[in-house]
């Protein structure tokens, strides 16, 4: 039942776009927005819709950093690794996040609560170092502030400013 329900709604999601190759990336983005990631089944569905081999879609999905092929945590943390953030110590910050959450980059914690990624640059270089949590930006961080943030997220169960 679970699978058919998802399938119905994925049809709705992708039907907003004409069945042309040029809309592939937009479709993938929309599907990921809906489900948080691109499952094997959704890639196959898109493949049927666009009449494009799944391998081609997989090729596109793995080329771009935005797409993820496994289920993310409820709170997705992305540590910016841009130049300005690097100069201001984002590598140490990343190490701290890894220790705090006890997960590696690209992984989701066992309780499915946190997942961790890095991002090339968030464009908030003037308030480096920066992290993004569920689309919200947090800047001018250090180890202490970071610990406070993670603690707050954990307690609230969601991202709070």
């Amino acid at each position, binding site marked *: 039942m679970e699978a058919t329900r998802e399938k119905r709604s994925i049809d709705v999601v992708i039907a907003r776009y004409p069945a042309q190759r040029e809309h592939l990336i937009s479709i993938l983005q929309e599907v990921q927005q809906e489900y948080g990631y691109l499952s094997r089944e959704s890639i196959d569905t898109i493949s049927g819709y666009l009449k494009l081999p799944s391998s081609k879609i997989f090729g596109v999905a793995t080329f771009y950093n935005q797409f993820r092929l496994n289920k993310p945590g409820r709170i997705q943390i992305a540590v910016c690794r841009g130049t300005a953030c690097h100069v201001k110590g984002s590598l140490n910050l990343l190490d701290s996040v890894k220790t705090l959450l006890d997960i590696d980059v690209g992984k989701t914690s066992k309780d499915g609560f946190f997942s961790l990624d890095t991002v090339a640059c968030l464009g908030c*270089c003037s308030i480096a170092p920066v992290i993004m949590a569920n689309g919200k930006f947090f800047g001018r961080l250090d180890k202490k502030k970071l610990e406070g943030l993670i603690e707050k997220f954990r307690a609230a169960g969601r991202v709070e400013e």
Partner: protein
Amino acid sequence: MSRVFIGMGTCGLATGAGQVRAAVEKWAATRGIDMTITPTGCIGFCKAEPIMDVVTDTGHRISYSNVTPEVAGFILDEAFVRKNYKLDGLLGQLKNGRQPFPGIPMIEDHPYFRKQVKYVLRNCGVIDPESISDYRSSGGFKGFERALAMSREEVISEITRSGLRGRGGSGFPAGKKWELALRENNARKYVICNADEGDPGAFMDRSILEGDVYAVLEGMMIAGYAIGANEGIIYCRAEYPLAIERIEKAIDVLKTEGMLEKPVGGHDFQFRLRVKKGAGAFVCGEETALMASVEGRRGMPRPRPPFPSVAGLFQKPTIVNNVETMANVSHIMREGAESFSAMGTATSKGTKVFALTGKVVNTGLVEVPMGITLREIVFDIGGGIPDGREFKAVQIGGPSGGCIPAQHLDTQIDYESLKTLGTIMGSGGLVVMDEDTCMVDMARYFLSFITAESCGKCIPCREGTQRLYEVLDSIVSPYSKMSGEEENLLRFNRILNMEGLAQVIKDTSLCGLGQSAPNPVLSTLRFFKGEYDAHVYDRKCPAHQCKGLLTFTIDTNTCTGCTLCAKKCPSGAIVGEKKKAHYIVDEKCIRCGTCRDVCRFESVLVN
């Protein structure tokens, strides 16, 4: 009625502008005051965010910096109730064409703004970016109207005369690009605005899109008319959600106003605009890769010719210009080519926006005329290096650029002079580095970025940058990882050949990304050879950044044996009895620096 403006760009929001807005709303509600809150884009002084402006009874607009929710209430009390404007955090008043408000300095006299010339950023942080009437009253769409009254050739010659060169990196003359596209006889042509600002350390395009989105769209409409295109696409990175939202809203407004998808100005010219969200690939900033991505494929560049102006998107003639270029176009068309060409140097006209970040006091966006020196930007506008540190270098042009050392700080900035220093203008990221930044580590950082972002199509870039990265990595890794003399010799051999390898990558890569990928290595080798030598021969990192080369020890004379470091050490590398000096077991030490951070007696020494 009372009115405040709050800078609510992404950087403002990240530093708490949302809470400030809530505080202002609450303040007005509890006092029953009718309050208009206008969110603006970023005025460029990100260090001072959140910024709030209050409007006086006389219509003057006075700006305050570092406004927290608590301070906001105080400012509102003082400004609206007690009419006192001389408060902490005062930045100054904005020019509004009237007599200045007595006793309050002008914001353009602030040290951060004094040497800046706001041409393309004039509206950012000043107008409400979502209000088309705000844009109109600042002179918006006059340039488009003027263009429609001219012939296509006249528009292009105006742009050519202005001397506008592409602001995305390469510096190709915009007028020339348009002329090539106009010459093509094709019923379908495209205008693409490259908003895939992938250079880490650059955010001027985000700021323009968030703060003055209509100027960009107007520039695209002018470009569309000039080359005879019917469709414009803004390729914007998905990492900029606020910018995308603003573009989409603005396009909808333009549609309802009848300026899009309908013939305008008595011509048969009608134009469509749409947004295409990028999906996070640095290489998509390269125009042929960008077009592949718009077509729904992997963003891989292709050889040129054919140039995009002949066969671009869907094999149709296409021009690709970046956000800052497009925004400049609308101002140039409104105020004439001379307003732009009067500024700058012989070959590089106009202004350039730089994103000033890193180890500098004032971070933010600065717009300066071409020909200004780096020293003026870093020290006069940027306020120098914080904490009394020594300036070491400034990195310009992102991963494709290079590092410029102190002895070249007086170089006048233009496309050509930067090239002679082995770097490029790029999109304008300026990352300042002080004595605590290791240049070998910087080169390695950029290479790790490039290896991750290389599209993999051509071998010099895919394999070459990977090898180059391995060499740099071996320089900063400890000896103990190496086994045997033979391997050490091999490693040394690679280091000796590093420069040659970099040159091969430069000469043989397919696209601009690969051709410029070795720049960070070549420029640091050129100006900071001494630091490489210290890493290679002495096995020391002078800036104490390369963890692999550091040794942590505890000064037995000052250690009080408080056991704090031993408790906090994540790898259990610290041993010692209570109240007696502790020791670090080097084999177990992971060089995380926790002990140094927690020690209250500065007993942990790093060498």
